[in-house]
């Protein structure tokens, strides 16, 4: 073995050992922590600005401390799918992302990461959505998600059509997962909200599209429950979704929905959007798989008007 090879191999070995050690925490992450202490199943706020509505919602939920503990690492997953400006509301509101990160650090988070596996060119999406700047301003690390090397294969034992997926390492390595979708119309899924937003943490989306998109969305929801879902429904794209072609696609609804139950959150968002939850096929599918509760009458909901 040449000296150079030896050095390279040693470095590699070091990296793999380190990586193996850091993978040790997986078990804990899959445990789907039950927040028995949460005062409400779902909080809906309306008629305020995104950041201020978030403050109200989190306060109603007992504060960010119920989700983020001191010293924990947090991954915030907005929708940054499209290379459009914030006014187009095809991506999550940057102001809201900034505020969420600030809350996390207030609770003592060690590190907050932000990423998405975008549809348009990732660097353009990060920049033009305003999210990169908003997140960095708040002190978060903005992480790329555009290369397969960031993703690791996981099993989805409860999935019907989707048995495996490659998931971004940050989702696997972080203590807390906060899902921050923006409510939009979607051509084939009808609406995109919390569960659909998880398509941005996996690598091969084409597989989903080939194998019954709606079922795959529901299947993947069984894999990893976000600790918190914060739905941006301030400007809602009601047509031409999910990318939209102009601001004429938007209606200013000024809603924010917070829940640790993706199915409940999506069902409530469907109502806000103006459709029944059943109309977005993956919602009843996920309900059936036991991911959450789509019957809003069975939930303890706090409705706040600003």
């Amino acid at each position, binding site marked *: 073995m040449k000296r150079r090879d030896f050095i390279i191999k040693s*470095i590699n070995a070091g*990296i793999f050992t*380190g*990586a193996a050690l850091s993978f040790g925490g997986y078990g804990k992450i899959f445990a789907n922590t039950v927040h028995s202490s949460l005062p409400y199943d779902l909080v*809906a706020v*309306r008629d305020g600005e995104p950041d201020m509505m978030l403050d109200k919602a989190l306060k109603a939920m007992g504060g960010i401390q119920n989700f983020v503990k001191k010293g924990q690492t947090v991954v915030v997953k907005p929708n940054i799918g499209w*290379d459009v400006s914030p006014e187009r509301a095809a991506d999550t509101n940057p102001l809201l992302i900034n505020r969420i990160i600030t809350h996390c650090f207030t609770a003592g988070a060690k*590190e907050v*990461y932000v990423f998405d596996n975008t*549809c*348009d*060119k990732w*660097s*353009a999406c990060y920049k*033009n959505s305003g999210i990169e700047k908003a997140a960095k301003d708040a002190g978060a*690390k*903005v*992480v*790329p998600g*555009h*290369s*397969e*090397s*960031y993703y690791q294969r996981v099993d989805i034992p409860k999935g019907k059509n989707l048995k495996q997926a490659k998931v971004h390492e940050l989702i696997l390595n972080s203590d807390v997962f906060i899902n921050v979708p923006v409510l939009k119309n*979607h*051509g*084939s*899924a009808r609406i995109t909200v919390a569960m659909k937003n998880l398509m941005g943490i996996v690598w091969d*989306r*084409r*597989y*989903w*599209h*080939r*194998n*019954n*998109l*709606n*079922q795959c969305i529901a299947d993947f929801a069984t894999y990893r429950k976000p600790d918190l879902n914060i739905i941006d429904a301030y400007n809602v794209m*009601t047509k*031409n979704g*999910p*990318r939209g*072609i*102009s601001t*004429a*696609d938007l*209606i*200013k*609804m*000024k809603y924010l929905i917070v829940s640790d139950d993706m199915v409940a959150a999506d*069902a*409530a968002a469907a*109502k*806000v959007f*103006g459709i029944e939850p059943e109309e977005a*096929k993956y919602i009843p599918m996920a309900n059936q798989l036991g991911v959450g509760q789509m019957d*809003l009458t069975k939930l303890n*909901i706090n*409705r706040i008007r600003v």
Partner: protein
Amino acid sequence: MKLAALKKVRVVFSILYFLSIFTLFIDFTQLIPEKIYDSLLFFQFIPSLLSFINGFAIAATGFLLILVLTIIFGRVYCSFICPLGILQDIFSYLSKKIQRLKRYRYVYIKPFRWIRYSFLGIGILGILTGITVIVSFLDPYSIFGRISSGLIRPLFVKGNNILTAIFQKFDIYTFYIVDLKPLQWSVIFVSVFFLLLILSFSVFKGRLYCNTICPVGTFLGLFSKFSWFKIKIDKNTCTSCRLCERVCKAGCINIASQEVEYDRCVNCFNCLTVCPVNSVQYIPATKTKNVRETKKNKSKQNNRRQFFALLALIFTARKTRSQTIEVSNTATFPAKRKVAVSPPGSVSIDDFNSACTACHLCVSACPTHVLQPAYTDYGFIGFMQPVLDNHTGFCNFDCIKCGEVCPTGAIDLLELDKKRQTQIGIAQFVKQNCIVETEGTDCGACAEHCPTKAVRMVPYQDNLVIPEVTDNICIGCGACEYACPTTPYKAIYVEGNAIHQIAQKPEEEQQKKVVEDDFPF
């Protein structure tokens, strides 16, 4: 200033300029502003000439300035500005270090005029007929571009990726991984061939390539022959020690006759640094005897006349052509692209084919990597020229990078608004291949990605939705084709527009705001 300092000036200038251009081709961060591309590439001879011919006269006079410089100073272009020439100098220099070849290793080389003028003729023919692929093979700047973009850039990207992976383990995400797209082997083969050719020529014979094959070198040689400033050997003081001949990369100093053959001299100024008796001078022609000048003036005028005649020919006699091709494989329902998709701003495939020298600067700069070197997509006429490959990416709606960087005018710089309406092709839906049809499940990946909603989902049987294309608002960006998940063939693909069209703007319909006053749950 001592004349020997000229060599130092040449070395410093050429290295800085070389590194700058090299950086343009290597850059994978897309952070270099448009202006830098423009100013750095302004003096590249063939791109500037083609750009001039293609009608951007004011912005593209770089080649005229080069001609003026050549008439005054000789072939300074070859030693100061041509990246391929500088690359050869670098190879020569390194070979001296590595192989311990002697510095004084060159000898006078006979001119090979037949070969030179044949290649020049072929090059001019290529420009006149609009069969630019010939020029692509011969233009030194484009050869350099392809070597940098196709062979060297991937090494930088791999290096970046290894470093990024290491940093990532330490939780540093400042750098990011850059994905490499599959290589077009035929194009790589051409680049490797030229790299080896140039490497071997430069290591053993200095600038032999520039004085046998390169049509730009030969063309400029027609002018440098009569340049005002020249290398002169003072026959009264010369001791015929041959040191100058031995350092002459161009092999153009014939010490037997104590003459320099100016059409091959590349103005490297090496000879100025070695003459022990200062017999080698770089001086204006006016300082020499007048007897020979009158004779030469005549031929100079002749030459000028020939040049203008040539320019006139170029403007009038350009001919273009195109060819249709089949892109996809053949099986169940293969999507066949009859016409390739050329970059937005290329106006038409004919225009593009006749103006692009395949330097691959746009291939390097394209953020989505949809631009890839063509194999037979355009037919042989467009071999190696960039083509939109919707399997590697799609044309970003809000991007005009290729137009910004293109030095030949093959890709016009469009206003962003105009680009968003430039229809480079039209999406074709192949229902037989579509998931909704074959599997009976929802999909909609194509409509999801469409920036104009030319592809949208409409009601279909069993409570499903299926894609439908509105031709007149489709711009052919290929987002639908890229996103389409069907294998091995796509259920939606872009058919190129041989002549680019203007698409309609999608309608923006204002909606009535109906937000219920109460919570809906």
